[in-house]
């Protein structure tokens, strides 16, 4: 197997993990709305996942860069920029005091990310298969 195949196998797994975090975020938000969890616990729980999520995505982008996968970089660049901006301006953390006011925005963001990761997942899967077939031939 060549490097490209390995890269996309990893990308598929990473995309799956990112999908799971998005779903986890969405589920947590609806838990908050239905009062299964209080905002303090929610924020502590979610804030622990924000940096790993952003980190994984950034790492994936780095791998694409090293593998010269320009299409993948172009696809991921907007989200990467969005995440980096959040880290730089230091507003990546969920604020328990503002959470009910910002909940709508957070939910929207998670849904968009979920859709994006899903799309990426299938694209990486396709690229992985292509790479593997190419490998066999």
């Amino acid at each position, binding site marked *: 197997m060549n490097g490209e195949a390995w890269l996309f196998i990893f990308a598929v797994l990473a995309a799956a993990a990112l999908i799971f975090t998005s779903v986890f975020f969405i589920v947590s938000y609806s838990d908050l709305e239905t009062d299964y969890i209080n905002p303090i616990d929610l924020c502590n729980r979610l804030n622990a996942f924000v940096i790993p999520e952003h980190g994984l995505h950034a790492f994936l982008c780095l791998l694409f860069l090293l593998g010269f996968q320009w299409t993948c970089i172009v696809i991921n660049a907007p989200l990467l920029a969005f995440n980096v901006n959040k880290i730089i301006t230091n507003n990546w953390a969920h604020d*328990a005091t503002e959470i009910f006011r910002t909940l709508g925005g957070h939910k929207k963001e998670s849904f968009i990310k979920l859709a994006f990761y899903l799309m990426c997942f299938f694209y990486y899967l396709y690229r992985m298969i292509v790479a593997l077939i190419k490998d066999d031939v």
Partner: protein
Amino acid sequence: MAEPNQLPPGWEAHWDQTHQRFLYVDRESGQQQWEHPLENQPQLAFAQERQAPVANTKRRQYAVDQAAAYSEPVAQYADSSYPPQNIQQPVTPGYPQTFTPGEPQQQSYYQEQQQQYPAQPAYGAGQLADQFSGLGIGGQKPLALHSVNLLTTPPNPLELLAPPPPIRLPPGASILDSPLANADPSYMRCTVGAIPKTAALRTKSKVPLALVLSPNRSLGATEPPVPVVTDTVIARCRRCRTFINPFVQFVDGGSRWKCCVCNMNNEVPQLFDWDSVNNVQADRWSRPELSNGVVEFIAPTEYMVRPPAPLTYVFLVDVSHSAVQSGMLAAACRTILENLDRIPNEEARTKIAIIGFDVALYFFTLLADATEPSMLVVSDVDDVFLPQPSDILVNLTEARAALEALLAKLPSFFAESQTIGSALGPALQAGFKLISNTGGKMVVLTASLPTLGVGALKAREDVKLLGTPKESTLLQAGDTFYKTFAIECSRATVSVDMFLFATTYQDVASLSCLPHYTSGSTFYYPGFNAARVEDVKTFVHEFGEFLASPVGLEVLTRIRASTGLHRSSFHGNFFLRSTDLLAMSALPQDHSYVIELEIEETINAPYVVFQCSNLYTTAFGERRIRVTTLALPTTSNISEIYASADQVAIAAYLANKAVERTLTHKLEDARDMVTKVVTDLLNAYKETVTSAGGQLAIAHNLQMLPLLALGLLKHVALRPSAQIPSDLRAYAHTLFTTLPVQRLIPYLHPTFYALHNMPPECGTIGEHGVILPPALPLSSEYLERHGLYLMEDGLTIFLWVGRDAVPQLMMDVFDLPAYDALRGGKYTLPLLENAFSQRVNAVIGKIREMRRGVYYPPLYVVKDDGEPSLRMWALSTLIQDRGDQTPSYQQWLGQLRDKIASTGY
């Protein structure tokens, strides 16, 4: 006597489902009547009622009083020998015993009710009479909508003192028709008096929908306390947990009640009709929760997760150089010392600790038998620990002597202090460690910017940022510590209060975060200097009142509303823990909260109910639930929404919304939001109610709204200016979100009096205390060069002296020979041996004490040609004038008219 089991022989009682009352039938004659047969001797019944004000006969009484009130002139009704035939007048079954507001001759009815409900907040008869005569309406007709043209109607300051438009509930909405069934507007009021049935109608009317509530408002000397249900029988809806209230209905012969919020049928608790003290059957209708909109329940043990915590105070006192030099330390210690007796301590459970801080922390051990306090210094502020597990937090009664000795000596310990710097964050952590297991109050008194340890802040105010879009960043917390620590405090039910004294930048925006999320209060005394008597007086009064106020602890507040109404946003000092649950570490007196409402689905019910319940521990260690209920009719008629709109509540909503907008967006956006709300409202009114061109019409009861909005835009909190320090802005924001409307309105729309030519009765004691002069419109065209004027916004009083003031006036008021001898600035007015001086002093005294809250406004004497900055400040209270970058009232109306015209309607 309304009990069916006490019937004379031959009579039967039948529960009538439709009318929610008993129908009495005489088996022999077949006669049916609604009144209890034993009460057909009206004179006897009346005499009994007179003797026992809280008689068990309320249910009957209404019919009697009302029949009399309708047919009898007032004077005759007051006469004890009024003819019985009037009372025997039958009350027809189809006409339920309704409370009909607006009938002028019913004054006596209100008075009667007031006497019979001694344990009630005042719902003054005179006030109601004024209200109705002022509106000129009567009967049960819908509220009449009177339009006024703003362009030709000068604003009338008296309009702001009028009560909100009366609430017209459908007949029979409340089971007892008590005039107190609805909470007084000072407890809870809504921006509209009739809730639109659909969201579309609300959007079309453009009237904001919000509740303004102040559940723990202070009671005046003449106001009776809130009635308390002592038997711990608490009827609540099984589904929505609403407390039983005057707007429920009894069904199934009175054995079940139908919840007015979710329409669920619930069992009436077994002991509901039982008097557990005397072990006898009690009269259900005498239960206060069925006749009062504001009522308190004593909570049984189910409402406690632990025994009620004692009232605990930790005073964190700044002992650095700036605190010592300004005299803050001495003044604070003296005030605590003098008010030790006023701190609520009925059960001798109150606990107190005092911690000093500068760059280190100073703990004081207070042993019960020692009179000499010993000091423990902790200089490691990075890892805070308590130097000793006990004797730092002590019982006020037991360690009284040691406490007094400490407070007397504390200023002298640090008199020579040259230390600059403040480890406020570590001090807060130490205080938190001390009381985190019981909760309580931490009172911070500081005169410096925190510079050490966690929560250290930078002097981030940059004059270049002021007046730019980036200004709002200065109004947000500068360090995340102030939010995360606030949440920790909220969890442990610790409440933080801030008393800030700095002469330089202190970052009020960050520091006020702690009181904001822990239900505390922020007080700010910029440039405090104990050498000035006026500064000390203001602080000592406010701090003393603050210590003496009966505070609630461990508070959970929930706001419930009828199906279809969603509580979308909350403003005030608390931590929002769930979609409608407010966690408050304390329930301070006279704090106000604003709750925005949204109509989620079409409301079909004829009326809706809002209920605020505060579960709290009283200062004397009792767990109580205060339930405030407000019922409002619903309407599908847009003119009824306008006719019942409450401009004062809308202004409170706008102020809170503007603060939120400033913090999440920019000051500019907040101003635009205020303008947009007013423009949209005027526009919608023009579209739906009037179509006459060339005028700016608004409902009579909303005519002050544009001026209030202008006052908001010109307020130091929102005004566009590059000169306003961010500390002042941040403090104004905290006041916007906490002041009760009674104080918030003058804060937005100050009051302006002419004193030199006030009518002779002003300043003398009248029927309702000192008579105030008539308020003038807020325009400098009323300022005459020889006059003496007073402007006040509830937090500051300005005494404006015209440059041509006659020597006699100067002599009478200031005891000075001439205008030139007068010095401007903070001033204590002498009380002289002449009538005019006494009247002026009486007016000022009245202004200082007439509103709720602990504030004691300082008095500034402003000379017509005096110091420009002070002069500008005083003139900024005259909001109808043109400001630096703000329009005059006429210009503002012109702008609004042009905006409406340009939108193409």
